């Protein structure tokens, strides 16, 4: 890598470490100050640089991670209140509101829909596989696709 890019990479590395810190600690009570400390930055400069790279402030990114992680936990069947607390929200009301704004459905409705899909996959897996692959799985074709006449 060209030598003139090294200082830039050094800065990047600190911001990336802060992003990875959020990824690992989203369930805890953290704020931009904690994250800036992690990156060894002044709070203002850190927020500006973070946003220039990820398109979101650290706080916005933290919320996005929490909501995304909540989706994964809801898919395991974990009760909504437990999911809310596990991903770092204090209030079920604000969690439900944020979740609905971002995903178009409440956590409960999302969970019902995803669990129903999981049951459908378990009951009729072939219906989730595109046609020719489904035929291979079902054993109606014995070998690879042949050239059309």
């Amino acid at each position, binding site marked *: *890598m060209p030598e003139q890019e090294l200082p830039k990479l050094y800065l990047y*590395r600190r911001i990336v470490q802060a992003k990875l810190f959020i990824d690992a600690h989203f369930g805890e009570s953290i704020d931009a100050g904690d994250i800036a400390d992690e990156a060894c930055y002044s709070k203002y400069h850190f927020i500006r640089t973070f946003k220039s790279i990820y398109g979101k402030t650290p706080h916005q990114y933290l919320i996005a991670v929490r909501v995304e992680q909540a989706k994964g936990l809801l898919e395991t069947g974990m009760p909504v209140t437990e999911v809310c607390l596990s991903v770092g929200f204090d209030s079920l009301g604000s969690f439900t509101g944020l979740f609905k704004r971002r995903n178009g459905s409440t956590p409960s409705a999302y969970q019902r829909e995803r669990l129903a899909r999981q049951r459908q*996959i378990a009951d009729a*897996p072939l219906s989730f596989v595109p046609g020719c692959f489904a035929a291979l*799985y079902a054993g109606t074709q014995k070998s690879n696709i042949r050239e059309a006449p």
Partner: protein
Amino acid sequence: MITKMNHTSIFVLDQDSAYDFYVNKLGFKVNTDAQMGPKGRWLTVNPPEQPDLEITLMGIDEKMMFDKDSAAKMRELVAAGTFGFGTFLCDDMYATYEELKAKGVHFKKEPAQEFYGLSAVLRDDSGNWFLVE
């Protein structure tokens, strides 16, 4: 006329390991993970911002697409790094590079400015490589 692609495949040596690589390291989303009995496992993922493209992580084995000989040849070719299956787009090259390096992803080529733009090349856990732009 053909309008879009909605499924494509990456041939992988081990589906559990590929799941870890594409989901936990690259951040892809699991779309469908279906156990198909003796025919194996239908495992598809979406790139994080592309929910309408399913990438099948297709195990190279005798369960579905390959016979014994072709599976052995394909496994050898994939492990040797023969195949480049596509290009992944990222929002910030250096941040992406630093994050994936921190997660243990191997890069065949570090980010560099080429005549076609800033790009890097990563290698998946099987040996398949992808341009990152």
